[in-house]
């Protein structure tokens, strides 16, 4: 079975080509999805890539959530389809209400492009099930607005339901302020929706798919989704 990864292209998206490259490394198929279309073209997984969709005017992701494509993405998510929001894609998922919380300006008030380590907090999600437990992933970040924030009740709920997917840590897996690149609450780097089929994260796994570029551990997210789909009946 071939897994079709749909990769959303909004005006201002720039990780689409990198995501397509990552998908091709897994041997599966990448299909561009144009923001103005409502058609997911039969894709099994939808990736909302990084970039500055619609210039991020108003607020990051605030305009993109109204794109016709997002109606189809909502529908897909509701039916249990897999959705992966990376960086700007995570911001869009939050604005679209598919994930709780918001991404605020980095506490440094500066853009940050640097390697980070991520501790996998939940293997409940199809995107993380194949990650070896206890082994932090080396994946870079590249954003100016990545400080995760959620209201106390929402945060408590995320923790209680095991929906915090990834936290920034050091290379030994220890959570600390030092390892937190942007001031995110509780070092949160990625979260899941209630069903676990929608994952949003600020780091860029598609940039960590080849040792040549510094790390291939981001590939685990893509492979995990592929294995999950392969194991589905029918």
């Amino acid at each position: 079975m071939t897994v079709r990864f749909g990769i959303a292209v909004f005006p201002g998206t720039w990780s689409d080509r990198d995501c397509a490259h990552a998908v091709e490394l897994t041997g599966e198929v990448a299909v561009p999805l144009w923001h103005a279309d409502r058609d997911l073209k039969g894709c099994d997984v939808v990736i909302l890539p990084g970039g500055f969709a619609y210039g991020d005017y108003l607020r990051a992701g605030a305009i993109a959530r109204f794109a016709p494509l997002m109606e189809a993405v909502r529908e897909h998510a509701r039916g249990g389809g897999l959705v992966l929001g990376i960086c700007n894609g995570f911001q869009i998922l939050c604005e679209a209400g598919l994930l709780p919380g918001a991404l605020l300006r980095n506490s440094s008030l500066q853009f940050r492009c640097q390697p980070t380590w991520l501790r996998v907090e939940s293997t409940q999600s199809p995107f993380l099930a194949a990650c070896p437990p206890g082994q932090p992933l080396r994946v870079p970040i590249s954003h100016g607005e990545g400080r995760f924030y959620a209201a106390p009740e929402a945060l408590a709920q995320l923790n209680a339901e095991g929906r915090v997917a990834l936290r920034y840590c050091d290379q030994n897996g220890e959570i600390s302020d030092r390892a937190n690149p942007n001031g995110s609450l509780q070092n949160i780097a990625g979260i899941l929706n209630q069903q676990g089929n929608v994952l949003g994260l600020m780091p860029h796994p598609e940039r960590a798919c080849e040792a040549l570029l510094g790390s291939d551990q981001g590939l685990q997210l893509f492979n995990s989704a592929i294995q999950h789909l392969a194991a589905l009946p029918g």
Partner: protein
Amino acid sequence: MRPAAADSPPTSAELRELALSESEYRSAADQLGRAPNRLELGMIGALWSEHCSYKTSRALLRRLPSEGGRVVQGPGENAGVVDLGGDLLCCFKIESHNHPSAIEPVQGAATGVGGILRDVFAMGARPVALLDGLRFGDLADPGQRHRFARVVEGIGWYGNCIGVPTVGGETYFDEAYQHNCLVNAMCVGLVQRDQLVKARASGPGNSLLLVGADTGRDGIHGATFASVQLDQEAEGRRPAVQVGNPFLEKCLLEACLELTGDPDLIGLQDCGAAGLTSSCAEMAQRGGVGLEIAVEKVSRRERGMTPYEVMLSESQERMVLVVRRGSEERFRTAFRRWGLHCEVVGRVIEQPLFRITENGSEVAALPLQLLIAGFPERHPVARAPQLSSLVAADPLAATPPWSPEDAWLRLLASPNCGDRQWIWRQYDHQVGDDTVLGPGGDAAVLRLRGRSDGLALTIDSAHRSVGLEPRRATAIALAEAVRNLACVGAAPIGITNCLNFGDPDRPEIMWQLEEAIGGLADAARELGIPVVSGNVSLYNQFAGRGIPPTPTLGLVGLLPDLSRRLGAGFLAEGDLVALVGAPGAGPAQVELGGSEYQRIAYGVLEGPAPELDLSREARSAQAILAAIDHGLLSSAHDCALGGLAVTLAESALLGGMGARISPPLDPPQESSPNWRFGLLFGETQGRYLVSLPTGRLAAAAALFAQFNTEFAALGSVGGATIAVEGVAEIGLEQAAIAWSGAISAQMDSSPSPQR
């Protein structure tokens, strides 16, 4: 059509505003056979500005070698192009945005990046990398910290938004740039040979399309503004600074790249300095045709704009296209898909004229020859200033203010030698998934998809001695850039240059310009590297004081085997440390003239610039490449700013391990008691600091001997200190604290006010 109406003769104030001299005005009127009207005069002023015409530097620039087996396009197009083999071409260019950045740092720097990106994608190339060369005043000054922070923010904002990685650069701080910072941006793009687009118009009757941003009143006279000195009133010229929109440019980039293979696309050009006037005139002139523009068709941002304002606006994120007649709608549709306005604003005509109409009336008609080539070339007098006593001074004569250890740590903690991470962590240097070696090393390295070779990129500026010996110091910049490329394993294939100088009407500055270009021309010829594109920025001057001459070079190189690439940091404890290419590893050769140590310790510039032997440089670069190709080395680092001591410390800090070397210590009889400082910090050229496994020593020694290149194993990697035995020793941790805080400690502890 009515002929263009005559206006009253311009006053001298008006001419000054256009940076035109009385004699230039007379020459224009003579060539035209009548007095130009105000619109025509504005167009002439813009195209005859130094920024567009290079009227002062043109004769000198002809000396630069631009030929070579790989050269597909030399100077004269939007960017230079070299052949990477396998039908893949590399387009690249560097350009300055100094004046705008001095006045409005965020937008000035951002639009500098936006402009150079357009130059590259106008050729059909996808931009794959940005680099920048920056100069600021003393970071201890809060005003400079503010400007520096905002320029970095502007560069990052534009590059990060548009999704092109900023992979390298060079930043230098010196009090002399206090009032006139330098912001040079370089862009590198890749294009398949059959997709290369030229910026030329042809085929009378074909249509001229304008796409992208609406035209507003911003940036009028930007080209002229770049061609006069900054002064106290410069603040008032802020309207001459454009405002950038990287989101719009991203859409423009993608739309243009979708269209580059289209057989109906005849020419593509970005609207940069002098807006529609220069972009259209240049396209028509290159194609040997004329153009007619109906200004009322140009979609505007504001009501009531005059033809003058429309033609001279420098609104950003606009491109002009010439397309085959009948295909206009197809292009408009393609642009509309990306949310972009695209209007047919004119057409190609047979007569070599640039004609502007407004609602059917002719408002300007100028021969293209007059606009593009009619300016009288300027040949200001060049005269060398009296510098011989400064050059002859002995930089070792003065009493050292610090102990060798103290001086070493101070250099590491200085913003010029210290860690630059504070800058580049604000730039996305990875987007595109091709960055193999990012900022922070000798050169950036990008892979080329589907190939085993790689692309290496670097920016370098002249040695600080450039004020005293511009010829040699500029040649040193090229030699150093070649060494930077060699350190990662790449051989140079092309140069782009940005010449930042003061007012050329001052004889000593014209002399600097002549000498610097001469030095670059000689060195480029000797090393066999073509100069394929460039930019000249003159009048970098504030209140009568010029900046130090600052030729900045951008180099592109090829690594034959990407898997052999090297970093600058030590790799393994126990590896040997060796110096390659050193005419004398010991104190026999002491060159502190113009060194960074001299600047920090004494605040002066004196003594001879370091010797430069270009044939030795060529040989040792070859030798390093061969050694890398044979897999003999673990690391390689150019020995430059801060001398042997700073280079050794950098390799140690990047690798996170100490090192101990023992250079021969037999000072010659006549040497100064301060020879230790010369040994540590002298900036003798031609040297590489390498490390290698002990087992490779014999093979390495044999290989370097084969290339007739000096090779001296001086010590080994390991330990908790960095030591030059018998001279100085510092703790690795202590060095790390000094080095890593060099910029960040100043910037983060006292943040400049937010906008």
